């Protein structure tokens, strides 16, 4: 008999816009008893003094330090956008840590013939609107507000530095050469209206489901659809 319960916990690795809290899709799973663990990652946490790692391997080590500190693995991992790239590498290189892998429009593989929208060729305040198909969620408009008027924009800038340093210039970190190492069950979802990463890339990840009405950060745009697919995948 297949286990029809949600896992006790999962790790959620957020996307290019940083950590704005638990997305509505993941919140549905949390409401059903699954603990959502979102590791805090240097740079994305907006803490002063951040210097972006020079090498991708150092970035992975930074993420993995945060993941290991949570003591959550082995468990399912849901990675969105940049988090999807990191989650895929975690599954590829540390297969014992990931029991199931859900990728939501992951970075890591690029198509030079259709590189998608250049998020960093628009001014900072105009970037967020390109990540969502249904408007920018309120959670992203007030990030780091608790840091105060002076420090909040700096914290946001550091988070943007972290994201840009991981994806510059095309967001390809060679996952195509490592994807064969992912042996755990895998689900790939993609927003049909993803401006950053054209949905056609889903085939490069071995195929998956394209979600209508969703932009790049689909767990925010279409929570019911994404939660439903995650629920099925995680229970299966």
């Amino acid at each position, binding site marked *: 008999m297949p286990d029809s319960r949600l896992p006790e916990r999962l790790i959620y690795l957020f996307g290019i816009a940083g950590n704005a809290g638990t997305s509505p899709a993941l919140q549905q799973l949390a409401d059903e008893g699954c603990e959502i663990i979102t590791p805090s990652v240097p740079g994305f946490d907006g803490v*002063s*003094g*951040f*210097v*972006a790692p*020079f090498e991708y391997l150092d970035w992975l080590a930074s993420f993995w330090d945060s993941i290991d500190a949570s003591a959550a693995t082995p468990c399912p991992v849901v990675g969105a956008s940049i988090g999807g790239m990191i989650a895929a590498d975690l599954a590829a290189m540390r297969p014992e840590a990931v029991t199931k892998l859900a990728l939501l429009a992951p970075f890591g593989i690029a198509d030079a013939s259709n590189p998608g929208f250049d998020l*960093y*060729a*628009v*001014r*900072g305040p105009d970037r967020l609107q390109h990540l969502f198909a249904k408007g920018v969620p309120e959670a992203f408009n007030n990030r780091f507000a608790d840091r105060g008027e002076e420090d909040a*924009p*700096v914290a946001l*800038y*550091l988070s*943007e*530095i972290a*994201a*840009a*340093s991981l994806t*510059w*210039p095309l967001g390809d970190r060679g996952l195509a050469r490592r994807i064969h190492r992912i042996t755990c069950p895998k689900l790939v979802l993609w927003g049909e209206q993803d401006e950053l990463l054209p949905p056609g890339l889903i085939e490069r990840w071995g195929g998956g489901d394209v979600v209508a009405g969703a932009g790049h950060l689909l767990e925010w745009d279409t929570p019911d659809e994404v939660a439903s697919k995650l629920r099925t995948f995680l229970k299966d």
Partner: protein
Amino acid sequence: MKMLWFHLMPYPALPDDFNKKHRSVWVDIDPALFDRDIMAETYDTYIEQLVYAEECGFDAICVNEHHNNGYGLMPSPNLIASILASRTSKAAITVLGNSVALYNPPVRIAEEMAMLDLMSRGRLIAGFPVGTPMDTCYSYGVNPSHLRPKYYEGIELIKQAWESTEAFAFNGQFNQHRYVNPVPRPYQRPRPPIWIPGGGSVETWDFCAANDYVYGALTYYGYKMVRETIAGFWRQVEAHGKDANPNRLAVTQFIGVADTDAEAHKLYREPAEYFFNRSLHVYPGFTDPPGYVTEASARARYKSQVRQVARSKQASHDLTWQEMLDKGYVVVGSADTVREQLEAAARELNIGNMCAMLQFGNMNDEVTRYNTQMFGEKVAPQLRTMFSEFSHDWWPTGA
């Protein structure tokens, strides 16, 4: 004061409606806009203008580096400088510069600049800009977070390569070499003077002051726009306990000289309007990649001048001639008018090296040569006597 003749090498035939129909002169400019015959002719003309500047008595001739750019046709300034090394004999050859973080390994820059220094018998000034975001992060794809650490490490590697008397190993974050041993080493010993063009970041002021490099406030908007930047540099010089020798500083300025103010306005208005409203039509989205400025600079609300102006200009209107004059973007007039303004600027800001931009926009060869001759004969001699009490420790030994 030293007089330097600075060439941007702009493409002179952008269409009249360029800033209406194209979003940017930089990064993704339409390559179909460039006519190959005009381009070829332009290189010939501009190189001859640089040679002519030496004939007019300029202390130095300057080239610089830009990429994917409609107003700077010198992605490789070293190519132009190598011609100038053989075509001239007295003027310093100022390469402002090579964007160190773009080259792998930077030892290549050490080699090429050493060749230039040898070919010119010690007349090279080695300029090392960080490079604009448009040139570095967008046109060359450098990760903005890596740009400055790569830049600082690259300069250190080049300097060691020039000064070392034997092969050595270098183990940096971005460069690992078991054998650094460039042949040739420079003509000047231990190395050519190093100038650092900057846009106003706190780190660059400190870098120049700490290492005794010349700080080049390279602005397209004239000395008035860089008052704060220059003040910040001099504060850092003082903080490091160094003397306020004006020769530590270089400033660029668009200049137009004629017999009368009225004649100057008539001659130079169109080229200035071409430059500021066509050549400098930069899409603001290409000016602000996260990581290009450090946390300290972001915190200080530092914003590069190009970005500021690009934003304000595109958000509002084309610059008018009167605005260009009032804001000091261009210093235009009779020899007396120009000299008075530049002398006042030099005194106020303590400028020992004036990088005169006497060709700008679509200024034709005849007017450029006239401007160069007028400046060389009627403006430069009086200015050159300024600050003569200071030694110039940053001037090439062969010039």
